[in-house]
Every structure is written in C-alpha cells, then in structure tokens.
C-alpha cells in the first residue's frame, strides 16, 4: 500500500522531488501542479505517467477526493503558500511546505521529525536548503553544551538557484535564522547565503559556526557531530564534513559539502537534494504512520 501524493510547483525543487517520490516504497506521486503547461517539470511528469495541471492549486483541488490525495508538497513560493495550504488542509490533505513561508512548525528530520509524528500537525515547514544542511550540526553542538550564537553560511552554485530563490532571497535568511534558534537550539541565529557562478558549478558548501557559552568539550562535540553526519547521510548519501570540527576558543566550526544524487540537476546541486530528500523522508514517516493506523 502506498499513500498518494501531489506535488505543487514544477520548478527545480518540485521536479527533483518527483524523482525521489517515484523511488519510494510508501509514497506514490499522482499529481504534479504547475502554472506553465510548457514547463520542463510538467513535461517530465507527463512522460513519467504523472497527472499534471497548469492551473495552479485550483486545478488539483477538484481531484483530491477522487484520486485520494493525502499528502501534498508545496514547492512554489512563500507568497502563495498560505493560500495553497489553506485550500489543501480544508480538504484534509497533510501539507509539507518546501517554501520559506513557515506557517507550520519547522521540520529538520534528524532533529525533530519524531516530535512531529506524535503531534499530527496539518502543515510542517522544511525550512530552507541551507537550514536542512546546517541545523542538524548546530543541534549536534547544542545537545552537548549551550550555544549562545549559531551562524551558517550556505554557498550554492548560481545554476542551482532558480528564479523563486533569487526573487525572495530575504526569506531564506530570515527563515533559516529563525530555525537555527528554534530547532538548532542556539540562543541567537544568523544565516548568510552566497551564490557562486563558477564553471563548472561548485558543489553546495555550508559552514557552521557555533559559539559555546563555556569552553567547548572537544571530544564530546566531535563525537556528536560525527554521529549527526551519519544520521543525515542516511537520507542524503552525499552529505559530508569536509573539515572540522575546528575549535578556536569558544568557536566550533564545521565545514560541510553536499553532493546531490543528480536526479534533476547534476550532482553539484546538493542544495536541491538535501531539501527534497528531507521532505521525502518526512512524508515517508507520515505515510508509514498513516498505513500503520489503518492496519
């Protein structure tokens, strides 16, 4: 048995996610929603036998009951997400939000997915690509000792940043900073994003700096950080610590690289993968719970 899903948004993220859902044992992508019939994402979806509409979320809503859609992923933009979510939740669909709208609580799987499973929210937010890559590491430090300040720098290749990301770059920094505090456990969070146009495109890179309140326990933090690397690798195999943790006074720095699976964009676009893989993992856990409750 599989739980039937819809994808809203046919850009880089939505299309990459489609490939991941097609491999899932418990999720079945049934609909893909766009606003441009000629978009590459919708074309690919049609070729893969997925139903499509280019009439936005309204084109989907009328089919929710007949096609028994139970989970929807929204990969549109922060501005339209609220309206999409309202319409979907009214139909009893669980919404996984990949935009930085952050109406629902933040979900970073290795940190707090279990909490969300027990709380049964209608809408969970996946923060941002930079957040998914770095917040597990902020948490890996803060679960050992208090972090007064957590800062992350996400560098992505220009080619992997779509028009939505570019137009609303402030939402990235604001949403990620908030999640560094709320999920990562730092008293104060700061996020920086940089686009690099180098050719060939650079692999997604993320740096995490944590300032601990007392002198860092190097042994414990290193063990915690390495365990977290493994936890993320369980769903993003290309996630790795390049350097660190480096200790300098109360500063703990971790240098990360995220290699994608090359589903839609090539391997350099680890920023797509970490977002879509985290979303797929979250939906799979929800789906398993739905299936279990029924049997």
């Amino acid at each position, binding site marked *: 048995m599989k739980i039937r899903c819809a994808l809203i948004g046919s850009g880089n993220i939505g299309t990459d996610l489609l490939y991941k859902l097609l491999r899932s044992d418990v999720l079945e992508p049934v609909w893909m929603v766009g606003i441009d019939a000629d978009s590459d994402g919708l074309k690919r979806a049609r070729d893969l036998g997925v139903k499509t509409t280019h009439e936005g979320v309204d084109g989907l809503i009328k089919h929710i009951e007949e096609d028994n859609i139970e989970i929807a992923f929204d990969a549109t933009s922060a501005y339209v997400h609220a309206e999409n979510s309202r319409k979907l939740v009214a139909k009893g669909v669980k919404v996984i939000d990949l935009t930085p709208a952050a109406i629902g609580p933040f979900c970073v799987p290795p940190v707090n997915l279990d909490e969300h499973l027990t709380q049964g929210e209608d809408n969970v937010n996946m923060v941002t690509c930079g957040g998914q890559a770095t917040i597990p590491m902020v948490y890996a430090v803060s679960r050992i000792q208090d972090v007064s300040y957590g800062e992350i720098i996400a560098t992505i290749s220009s080619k992997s940043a779509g028009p939505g990301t570019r137009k609303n770059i402030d939402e990235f920094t604001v949403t990620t900073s908030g999640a560094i505090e709320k999920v990562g456990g730092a008293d104060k969070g700061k996020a920086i994003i940089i686009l690099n146009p180098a050719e060939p495109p650079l692999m997604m890179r993320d740096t995490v700096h944590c300032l601990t309140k007392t002198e860092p326990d190097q042994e414990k933090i290193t063990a915690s950080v390495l365990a977290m690397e493994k936890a993320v690798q369980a769903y993003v195999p290309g996630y790795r610590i390049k*350097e660190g943790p480096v200790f300098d006074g109360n500063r703990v720095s971790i240098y990360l690289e995220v290699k994608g699976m090359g589903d839609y964009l090539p391997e350099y676009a680890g920023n797509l993968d970490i977002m879509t893989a985290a979303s797929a993992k979250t939906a799979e856990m929800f789906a398993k719970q739905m299936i279990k409750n029924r049997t």
Partner: protein
Amino acid sequence: MSKIIKIHDMSLRDGMHSIAHQFTLKNMVDLSQALDKARVPLIEVTHGDGLSGDSVNYGFALHKDEEYLSAVIPKLKYSKVSVLLIPGIGTVDHLKMVEDLGVKTVRVATHCSEADVSEQHIAYAAGRGFDTVGFLMMAHMLSAKEIVEQAKKMAGYGANCLYVTDSSGHMLPEEVSAKIGLMREAFPNHEIGFHGHHNLGMAVANSLAAVEAGADRIDGSIAGFGAGAGNTPLEVFAAVCDLKGINLDVDLSALMDAAEDVATPIMGDKLPRVSRGALTLGYAGVYSSFLLHAIRAEKKHGVPAREILLELGRRKTVGGQEDMIEDVALELLRAGG
C-alpha cells in the same frame, strides 16, 4: 563649468575592513567631520560587509550599524550618508531599521553576475525615495556587455545609479574605460559609478579612466582606507583631478589635512599599503576583504596567506565567501603535509 563628479567616501565602510571593523564611535565622528569640512558629498557608514555584516564569518564590529549612523549623521552639515546592503547578508528589515536615522543613499551590492538577487532591496529603497544604487561587485569577472545586461536588471528594479565595482583591484585602466564607456552608452539617463581598489597600484589611474569614459560618481577613501591595499585615495585623486581640470567641488587642502592629521593617526600601522598579500589579491583577482582573514589563517594553521589567496582565485570565489579561507587553508595543510 564642467560637470561635477561626485565623490563618495568609503573610509568609514570599506575602511572598516582595514581594522577588522573596530572603529570607535569617536573615530567615525572625527573622520566624518573632517570629510564634511572638505565638502565630500557622500559618506558610507556601515560594517565593512554592509548592514548586518556583523558575524563570525566577517567579524563583529565594535558597534552596531545603528550606533555608528546615529553618532555620525546628526553632526554633519554638508555631507550625506549612504549605507551598503549585500543581499544574502542583509535584508529589507535591516534597511527599515536604519532608514529613519537620516540615511539618504542606499547601495545594493551583488556579485556581478547575480543582479537578480537585488530586486527586493532595490525596489524597496527606490520606492521609499532613496537615492538608490546598484553595485556590481567583482566586475573584472564579466565582459563589458555582460555587465550591462546585469545592470539593466538593477535599473529595471528602480536603481538610479549603476556601479562597476573592481572589488579585487584587478582591473587596468583600459578595462575600466571599456566597461564604463559601454555602461555610459547603455544608460544615458542613469548615473554611472566606479569603485576601485589599489591592489595593483592602479586605483587613481582607474578612477581617472572612469571619469574620462563618462562616470558620474567615484568611490574613494581618505588616506586610502579600505580592504586590501585600500580604495582610491581621495586626496590624491582630488589633486589629480584638479590638475586635469575635472571638477569635484571639494576642498583639496581640507582633504589633504583630513588624510594627514585625522585619518593616518587613527589607522597607525594598519594603514593599507600594497603589501604582499594585497598585491596577491589584485594579481589573482580575489575579493579584497579576504586579506586579513587569510593572514589570520596563516597565523593559526601555518599556511602562507599568499598560497591561500592564490587558491581562492583559482577556485573563482566571490565576495562573501570568507568561510572558504580556513577551509582552503586546512586543505592545503593536508595536501602539503
């Protein structure tokens, strides 16, 4: 009377890089008062990396942007104040925090090929009636034609002034002439600006080339404060312009006094010069504010700053990627060891 070229002082913003963002409020007030006396029309005041640049990555400033702006602006009689904002670091909210302090100009800076990340900020600033500048950094990395294409986006969002920014101090005068010349042609109704760094010792020559190619605004700083080997030294540029009959409408003697009597004692041994590291920046086309960070990485990890900077150049790093410096240092250390 020939047209007046507007000079824009960088001492209090780019100059922050020279002393790891540690100006005191008194340093800022003293410098800005000296610039005001010399009738410098525009002065930029923020963290070296713009609004909200305060971070582990770029360094924490001694004071918040709001504190510096509140200390400087009320005392000025002639000069107006600008702020810098780099999307991805600062947000529209940061702009809102400072806009009531009397700021007149907002400059929104992006890497030269990424102008479309500036839409939110330029549109906001222009909509609020600011003198709004689009600032294309690391402009040596694109052709003149490509720079014009990116500048068109910023103009479309509402910028009234467009900058060619030589963040690495890598350009030579003929490149400046070509780029500013094509910008002048493409934007007859916009102001065009040039921001230079002195890493190859060309900042004054480049700024002169920009004026001759039609630029309206030139950035510089008193005593050449600024990242790397510093920005175009304003007092030198003003003297050269005077000899060339270019009208800056500033008081040359007051600028010289400001450089010698006010600026130089503040900077002491941190006064920028074409040091080995700064020259490497210009030579390899690397973002100027990487300099002090690379020197720090050399001290901590024992890898020569020059090697780190050359590697950062080979990897085509862009402004803001200071986090690559320690990463690259550790990688080189392993490769060498």
